[in-house]
């Protein structure tokens, strides 16, 4: 066999292998986008959520750390400075006129200033923040316990979830589906470590971390812990919010129950 033919053959083999690998990759990506495949993958999501619930139940507490464990470089992710005019006015005024609205399916809608929140039952905790991306930072959080606030507003019997509406828009859309929001169930709402944090590491919550308040939902990943919370609504279902999956990131493929 001549040298040329051998080289040709090698080149052909190389091209064939590259082509086959390309086909396999394209096949994988097509599978990853197929609705049937995703419906199958979703079944495991339900299993994962139920097993987590079974495992840690209502009451297990996230680990808390000594002050020496606090990270010197707690990362701020997602939006770090909402650019809406209304929000920037609040920042300029030190959130003096800001009010947290608690409404929806409640008996007594509330409008609370930061001073009102500071006067409510509070909790301080040093916990680890686990980002879905894989990194962790440890911080000290002080905030109003969410459970007593919701009890004060009085849930109507059909209320099953709390929705948090935020001042930040991560994706510009015409229909508002790019606005940050989150939903949690009542088990998590009344968990003792679930707080609306107004202090981080003994300082007023910085803008980068969600001023004036961010939800702390220990035992789940960072994207559940909405920053820049403006309004909380008790709701029956989250099917009609955003794209219907229960949160900004859930609408983009993350798990609603983010315990793993």
């Amino acid at each position: 066999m001549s040298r040329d033919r051998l080289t040709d053959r090698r080149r052909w083999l190389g091209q064939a292998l590259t082509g086959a690998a390309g086909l396999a990759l394209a096949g994988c990506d097509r599978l990853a986008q197929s609705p049937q495949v995703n419906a199958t993958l979703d079944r495991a999501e339900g299993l994962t959520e139920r097993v987590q619930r079974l495992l840690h139940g209502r009451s297990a507490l996230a680990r808390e750390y000594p002050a020496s464990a606090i990270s010197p470089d707690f990362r701020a992710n997602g939006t770090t400075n909402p650019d809406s005019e209304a929000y920037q006015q609040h920042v300029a005024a030190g959130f003096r006129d800001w009010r947290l609205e608690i409404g929806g399916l409640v008996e007594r809608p509330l409008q609370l200033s930061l001073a009102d929140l500071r006067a409510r039952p509070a909790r301080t905790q040093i916990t680890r923040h686990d980002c879905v991306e894989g990194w962790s930072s440890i911080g000290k959080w002080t905030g109003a316990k969410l459970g007593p606030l919701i009890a004060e507003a009085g849930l109507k019997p059909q209320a099953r979830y709390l929705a948090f509406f935020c001042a930040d828009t991560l994706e510009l859309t015409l229909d508002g589906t790019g606005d940050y929001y989150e939903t949690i169930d009542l088990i998590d709402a009344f968990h003792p470590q679930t707080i609306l944090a107004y202090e981080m590491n003994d300082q007023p919550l910085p803008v980068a971390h969600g001023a004036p308040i961010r939800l702390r939902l220990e035992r789940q990943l960072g994207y559940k812990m909405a920053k820049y919370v403006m309004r909380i609504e008790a709701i029956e279902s989250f099917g009609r919010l955003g794209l219907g999956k229960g949160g900004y990131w859930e609408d983009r493929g993350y798990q609603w129950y983010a315990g793993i």
Partner: protein
Amino acid sequence: MDEAERTLKDGRVAIYRHPLLVRATHWVNALCLVLLLLSGLQILNAHPAFYWGEDSRFARPLAAVTTVDDAEGGLRGRLTIGAVPFDTTGVLGASASGDGGLQAVAFPSWLTLPGYRDLGAGRRWHFFFAWALVLNGLAYGLYSLASGRLRRVLWPSLAELKGVGRAVLDHARLRFAHGEQARTYNILQKLAYLAVILGLLPLMLFTGLAMAPGVDARLPILTELLGGRQSARTVHFLAASGLVLFALVHIVMVVAAGPVNEMRAILTGWFVLGKRDKGR
């Protein structure tokens, strides 16, 4: 031995080495590990840096993949281990994008599932096949214990352990057992399979669970034993690297020892002993 065996027309002996359950779980395992590796690298691409302890000290990772701009305005990929940088352009940090140029991504798209950036999808694939791996492993483990296969086929004797040095030399020279000696696994096979079954795979599971904040709330001991969440994440990657290394050596050994016979054994169960020892 309760293994079935038969003599072929040419006088060689074939033994029924792998029962159906072992063959089936072997292939399910292989599929799961490939998909877990690819989806795992998709997840890792969201933050391609490793730390030790509970939290991430971003300024000093143990190792990290980054993308930097070079003087001509192009992209260079860089892997930094400790304080030592390596140029990994083309593979890590900067690799081929669809349009022929370079894209800034830690692991190249041909090593991730999906091939495009999608952390949410990577997680869905990862958790689905993690369940499949665990259920498959349970089926294999229960069968191996109940049938006594673990003890009979994989557990090494003291005499075998003493011969480990010689076995290493034989393997290094690609001298493999033939005939009757190939009827059982050699000591290195036994140790490698046991290290994977009882070591690396359980370690993958526990380090994976230890990263979950939900699991950490109920079983903090798991994360604490591993030295913290970021340590667990680092060990998860190292153990995965160990599995990749095992798989590569495993495939090389299959090819070196006789790919037709080995593939027939893991597909049909029947392994043909070599001719050399016939009639001895």
